[in-house]
């Protein structure tokens, strides 16, 4: 068990280092950073000045080591545009994105688990097929378009919710729905296939033979086993949702890290972009680690592996 976790931790660290390197390389793709920062109207002297001020005249390997050395202790430099510490900027915005992610995940689970169970219990019936159709529709729905539709219907026509912005809890409802939509298909399919498998297993036959009630069989025996993969996938899914929230935050002008990243990309504010990529990747890595841990805790069979 300890060995398994240690090995997973080592891999996670290696992945984190690789992503660190990749996100550094990402910003050097465009060629000369100083020219991009200076903008189209800058003179040659301006560019030289910026190059020296930001340390871009040093050899690439020195810049890289310097950046890593600082990033490891959480210092991502200063934003070119906001003139603030990048770490502080991200710290301010991260709660919004995480709240959105959790709201979306909660909504997704609230829909996916009951529907997945219903589909498994009535396997092969119209119920099952309807649920699978819902999954297909969710998979095909462009998130930004769904966001706009909700704005028109819920925001404008029914006047139920604010159309965009940050501030109150109501601002999280529509983005949450859109985010949930993207996670529902995977979670629902997993719940369904887990329940189908559990329901056809020997221990359920035993439970039936013992004369347990239908509810107790479903809730206590089948669901407990079917839930293991769902719980760990939910953690991974949250990582994907945080990474994908950039589109939704931009549509709804919700000021989280996704919105910050989008603003920074359009303003060539590379330290911020670099840091957001890194932070989101690290959160994902941490969540997959958590998923493995949850798996091991919930399913004793996996601990030996």
């Amino acid at each position, binding site marked *: 068990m300890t060995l398994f976790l240690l090995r997973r931790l080592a891999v996670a660290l290696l992945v984190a280092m690789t992503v660190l390197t990749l996100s550094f390389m990402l910003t050097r793709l465009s060629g000369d950073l100083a020219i991009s920062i200076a903008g189209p109207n800058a003179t040659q002297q301006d560019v030289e000045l910026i190059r020296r001020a930001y340390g871009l005249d040093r050899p690439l390997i020195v810049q890289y080591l310097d950046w890593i050395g600082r990033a490891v202790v959480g210092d991502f430099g200063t934003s070119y545009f906001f003139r603030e510490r990048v770490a502080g900027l991200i710290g301010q915005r991260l709660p919004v994105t995480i709240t959105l992610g959790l709201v979306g995940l909660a909504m997704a689970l609230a829909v996916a688990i009951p529907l997945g169970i219903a589909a498994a219990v009535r396997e092969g019936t119209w119920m099952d097929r309807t649920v699978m159709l819902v999954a297909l529709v969710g998979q095909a729905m*462009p998130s930004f378009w769904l966001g706009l539709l909700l704005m028109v219907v819920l925001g404008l026509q029914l006047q139920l919710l604010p159309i965009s912005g940050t501030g109150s809890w109501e601002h999280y409802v529509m983005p949450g729905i859109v985010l949930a939509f993207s996670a529902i298909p995977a979670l629902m399919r997993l719940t369904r296939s887990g329940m189908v498998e559990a329901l056809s297993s020997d221990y359920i036959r035993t439970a039936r033979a013992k004369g347990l009630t239908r509810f107790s069989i479903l809730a206590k025996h089948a669901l407990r086993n079917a839930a293991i993969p769902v719980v760990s996938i939910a953690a991974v899914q949250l990582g994907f949702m945080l990474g994908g929230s950039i589109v939704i935050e931009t549509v709804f002008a919700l000021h989280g890290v996704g919105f910050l990243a989008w603003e920074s990309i359009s303003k060539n504010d590379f330290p911020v972009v670099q840091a957001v990529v890194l932070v989101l990747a690290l959160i994902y890595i941490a969540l997959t680690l958590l998923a493995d841990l949850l798996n091991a805790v919930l399913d004793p069979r996996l601990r030996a592996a």
Partner: protein
Amino acid sequence: MSEALTAPGDGATGRRLAFLLGALIVGVVALAAVLGPSITPHDPFAQDLGKRLVVPFWMEGGGREHPLGTDQLGRDYLARLIYGARISMVIGVLTVVASGLIGTTLGVLGGFFGGRIDDLVLFAITCRLSIPVVLVALAVVGLMGNSFTLVILVLGLLLWDRFAVVARSTTMQVRNLDYVSAAWCAGSSSFSMLVREVLPNIATHLAVVATLEMALAILLEAALSFLGLGVPPPLPSWGLMIAEAKDYMFFSPWVIMVPGVALFALVFGINLLGDGLREMLGTQDAR
């Protein structure tokens, strides 16, 4: 998905219907993409400021001249939609070719040789999964400038993970089968075994992944273009059409309905095709 529809009775019919519907949708869009501008009387780029936001035929005041109406610059919506089909299809297909090549190569190598090589491949997949796709794609396009080719390149380089996962696991299964051992005993080289024995046997699984990834690539391109960091205007990418129509949606909601429904239908159709394919092959793992 699959078990749901394999129930006895009308299940099989429903399944075939779903597959046919998918084939029909993708077929129509592909035809529009191939024939392109030659089937519409209007030029997708021609502006006519006197005829801005003409409503589509199902609304009062809509006419036969512009069946789906015109956009905010008076460009014919149907012509732009048809031209946009070409963009979506080309991006979907080319991205899948690129990501399929990368992912399949990695997955097959890892699954076939195992050991250290497999560890490396697994590590690459883990790294790839921890990178936020949309964000990185946006950042790269933002840095290097909007272009059609760049979008394909970036998506191709980012979307290979599922190909690698499926190619790896299916190759592992095939490797242990008797005919591969037989080929081995007959003195085949590793390369010829990979090409002659392994690839043909995992091709069907990869085809299922290809449909999923194509759908994903089309959705992502639309999202990138919607955010202004994808296909450059005035090209009528469906995502870009939605972005341009966004400012008018509160007054005339149909402007975002037309390209949005097209995008949804195409992705839905591709997914239906993929599901049908998966059931025909009886594969469960290619998810």
